[in-house]
């Protein structure tokens, strides 16, 4: 690397950073120090307290402000003469189209979710701008380089989808604490404080035959003039007592399982307590604000403590009461937010009480918050290292030093003496539906599935399009956009409700559909294969998309979207559990395939590494080549599916 030449490409470069969070802060600093003079940065987020331990450009006084803007101001203090252009916006906004991307020499991602990463990948492909992608979790991290036609694109390798759970596991037969969290967060919390119209399985399967005898009145509605104390206990007894008893009546279910125990408030809490509680309540009127907390109120200050059943029950009732008394205006519109203290308290308590019923070990608020909020471990050091590696790759990209591109893994435990392990990038996968033109195959019942199912379950959820357009030959079946005629809008709305075979241009076995996202300038073809039956357990969507998933089955990931998509729209996690990391996450790595080796042009099967958890990564990585420069990633052999690193 000639340093003069390096300096001149750096000075002349115009770079786009997507994300001003953990990696972003470090990256912006390192870019500025390295001599970059024209940096644009997009981030839709505002600063939160839990960012401050690693996003070092931010201070307590910045909480609530735009990350992109504050980061810019902070860096200008030590590099006042460079140009940093901040955008407090979502990278998926239509303003950031292909033409916008084309102005940059390289795009650097420091993102925290799969959805945005895929979106940026497509725009980079369409604009033919190289992408340096990154992610970190705890002490682990990785940097990869994606240059159209030269290296694989971000989507050449299927990314593991967030884990979701079968509905009945959540509603009736939880066996892990996370199931209780999902129930408390996505079902109970939503039912009580969220959108009443949303479909919700809270009561469905647990009641079974009893559904007809259910009163017409919604038990979850607070009755007119109902005392809040009474209402709280009624809800408590209904969900932890009555519903469990109903479930018990279904004997078949419990033959091979631990029998759950109904819990009623009167057995846990004495009336005396309620009375006391009522008294304290009066002091509360003064304590208004988003930080209202049932815990603080009950004098339970340590989030690391594991509460008893009684303590959980008190928190449950107190939190419910606080929502109705102090945050009453928000009821009906709330969705779970990990930064909402009272919501976390409520969900922790509800999950723990349910866990007691089912004989599942209890957890502290700190742990429950991590699970409920999909909180990913994050430290400053890993982000700093990854940012340094991103800049090194970015400079190679700007120098067009193709042979030197590396993907680099930052490990917690050394593998063959290495903590930072460079690997040659993979070639583009020829069958990738994103960067090549290979069609996908969809098995679907064309006489039963509606166009709407296809749009929601496949085009949006799986293929990741935001503004899809669907064509059958030259016939337009569906599109979205601001500039459509009313006729068209009505026409498309009608199409959505039609089954595929009855569309104006019928879609049947053998049809090829073209779906396109105009913003992403990305299109792909889908061959339709008619199939009569689908396994309800394994293929609950009633359709199966092939050619995009690799080894693991769709059924495993997507058993129920209503659970999966619960609350997390803003961080796009669309996941429900701690097993699905979304902040700065790592997306590793690959299944076996050909990969070019450097100077000696050997061909070797390489592959990789699905990693169950962070402690295992180094064991999974194995060097096959004994010469200095090559590191191979070896697939563990017996593992059945790839997993995201946690």
């Amino acid at each position, binding site marked *: 690397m000639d*340093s003069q030449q390096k300096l001149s490409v750096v000075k002349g470069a115009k770079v786009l950073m997507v994300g001003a969070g953990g990696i972003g802060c470090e990256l912006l600093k390192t870019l500025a120090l390295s001599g970059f003079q024209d940096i644009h940065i997009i981030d839709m987020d505002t600063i939160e307290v839990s960012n401050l*331990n690693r996003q070092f450009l931010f*201070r307590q006084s910045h909480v609530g402000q735009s990350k992109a803007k504050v980061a810019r101001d902070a860096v200008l203090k030590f590099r006042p003469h460079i140009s940093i252009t901040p955008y407090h916006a979502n990278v998926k906004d239509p303003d950031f189209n292909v033409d916008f991307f084309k102005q940059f020499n390289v795009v650097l991602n420091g993102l925290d979710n799969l959805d945005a990463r895929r979106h940026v990948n497509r725009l980079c492909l369409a604009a033919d701008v190289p992408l340096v992608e990154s992610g970190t979790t705890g002490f682990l991290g990785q940097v990869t380089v994606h240059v159209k036609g030269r290296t694989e694109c971000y989507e050449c390798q299927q990314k593991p989808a967030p884990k979701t759970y079968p509905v009945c596991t959540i509603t009736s037969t939880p066996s892990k604490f996370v199931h209780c969290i999902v129930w408390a967060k996505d079902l109970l919390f939503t039912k009580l404080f969220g959108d009443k119209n949303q479909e919700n399985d809270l009561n469905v399967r647990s009641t079974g035959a009893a559904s007809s005898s259910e009163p017409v009145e919604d038990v979850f509605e607070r009755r007119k003039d109902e005392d809040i104390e009474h209402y709280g206990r009624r809800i408590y007894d209904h969900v932890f007592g009555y519903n469990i008893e109903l479930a018990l009546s279904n004997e078949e279910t419990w033959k091979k399982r631990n029998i759950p125990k109904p819990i009623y408030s009167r057995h846990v809490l004495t009336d005396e307590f309620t009375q006391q509680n009522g008294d304290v309540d009066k002091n509360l009127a003064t304590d208004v604000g988003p930080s209202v907390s049932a815990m603080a109120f009950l004098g339970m200050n*340590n989030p690391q403590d594991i509460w008893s059943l009684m303590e959980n029950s008190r928190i449950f009732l107190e939190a419910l009461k606080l929502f109705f008394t102090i945050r009453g205006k928000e009821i009906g519109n709330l969705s779970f937010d990990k930064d909402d203290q009272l919501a976390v308290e409520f969900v922790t308590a509800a999950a723990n009480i349910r866990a007691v019923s089912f004989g599942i070990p209890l957890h502290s608020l700190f742990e429950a918050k991590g699970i409920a909020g999909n909180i990913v471990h*994050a430290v*400053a050091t*890993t982000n700093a290292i990854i940012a340094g590696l991103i800049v090194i790759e970015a400079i190679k990209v700007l120098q067009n030093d193709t042979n030197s591109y590396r993907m680099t893994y930052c490990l917690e435990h*050394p593998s063959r003496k290495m903590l930072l392990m460079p690997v040659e990038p993979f070639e583009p996968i020829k069958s990738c539906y994103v960067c090549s033109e290979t069609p996908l195959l969809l098995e679907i019942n064309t006489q039963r599935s509606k166009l709407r199912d296809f749009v929601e379950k496949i085009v949006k959820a799986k293929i990741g399009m935001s503004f899809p357009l669907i064509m059958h030959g030259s016939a337009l079946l569906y599109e979205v956009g601001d500039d459509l005629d009313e006729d068209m809008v009505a026409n498309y709305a009608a199409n959505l409700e039609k089954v595929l075979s009855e569309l104006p241009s019928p879609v049947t076995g053998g049809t090829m559909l073209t779906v396109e996202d105009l913003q992403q300038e990305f299109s792909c073809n889908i061959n339709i294969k008619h199939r009569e039956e689908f396994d309800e357990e394994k293929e609950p969507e009633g359709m199966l998309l092939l050619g995009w998933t690799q080894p693991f089955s769709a059924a495993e990931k997507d058993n129920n979207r209503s659970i999966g998509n619960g609350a997390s729209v803003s961080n796009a996690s669309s996941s429900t559990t701690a097993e699905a990391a979304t902040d700065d996450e790592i997306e590793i790595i690959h299944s076996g395939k050909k990969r070019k080796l450097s100077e000696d042009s050997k061909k070797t099967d390489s592959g990789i590494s699905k990693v169950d958890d962070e402690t295992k990564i180094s064991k999974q990585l194995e060097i096959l080549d004994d010469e200095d420069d090559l590191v191979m990633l070896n697939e563990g052999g017996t593992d059945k599916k790839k997993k995201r690193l946690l």
Partner: protein
Amino acid sequence: MDGEQLTAQETALYDRQIRVWGADAQRRLSKAHILVYGMKGTVAEFCKNIVLAGVGSLTLVDDRMVTEEVLSSNFLIPPDENLYSGMTLAELCCNSLKDFNPMVRVSVEKGDLSSFGVDFFDNFDVIVVSSCSLAAKKLINKKCRTASKRVAFYTVDCRDSCGEIFVDLQDYRYSKKKLEETINCHLQYPSFEEAISVPWKTLPRKVSKLYFATRVIEKFEEVEGRNPGEASTADLPGVLKLKKELCDAHSLNESHVPDNLLERLVTNTSEFPPVCAIIGGILGQEVIKAISGKGDPLKNFFFFDALDGKGIIEDISSDSNTGK
């Protein structure tokens, strides 16, 4: 651990990292006292990392004034003469670092670190030095070793796009969980002087070439009476001559110390910011590991070269077979 709890403020601020290393480790960090010497880019990165992590205190020692070179890689110093004139590097960095985390005490100590008495070193758990002469490294390391408690010693330096970390944790015991079992580990580190005295020919064939190259330049600067980092392109012939002498003395084939590597290291002596971030990050992680007792610490050298992208640990000790 003791019964002290983290405050609500600490729990909120450190939430994401407590999820990585646990509340116990966070408590240990908050009681650790760290001293750094040599406020260039890599040390600035390191300081940022451990202040964010929430150590108890950080003491900065560096009486030098601002130079162009320091400005180019140290983001803690505003490039405005009105702001920096009259202040030492340590004072300037201290002002910036205080802002990063109000819960960490950051202060400046004036004077020449290598002349401080052993008593002074007793006040710290970790000493990190950078841009230090060979003699100063040896001396400071020795003082850490004679202190009344264990004082961990690190050196760190970056040149061109390369970096080196040396670690001396002396006699270090820690435990780790493997599956359900708790394993007790014991590592014995050589001092810097002991490590660099290990005959080159006894080292494994594939030891990082950077190890040798760095020793050559370090020695050159000592012999020629230069300040650390001062060897430049003009010195290349002298450096190559010394390399030959050292290789001969150690009976090591000269190919283990490539001329072009030495040339890179003397041609561009200033730090390359991405490498500062990487080396400062690795060093931060190592210091956090050593303080918290969580994780395997590296023993005892770490090298990174942006040219091949590898970050490698080398164990350079006379008996690298110390038990685990």
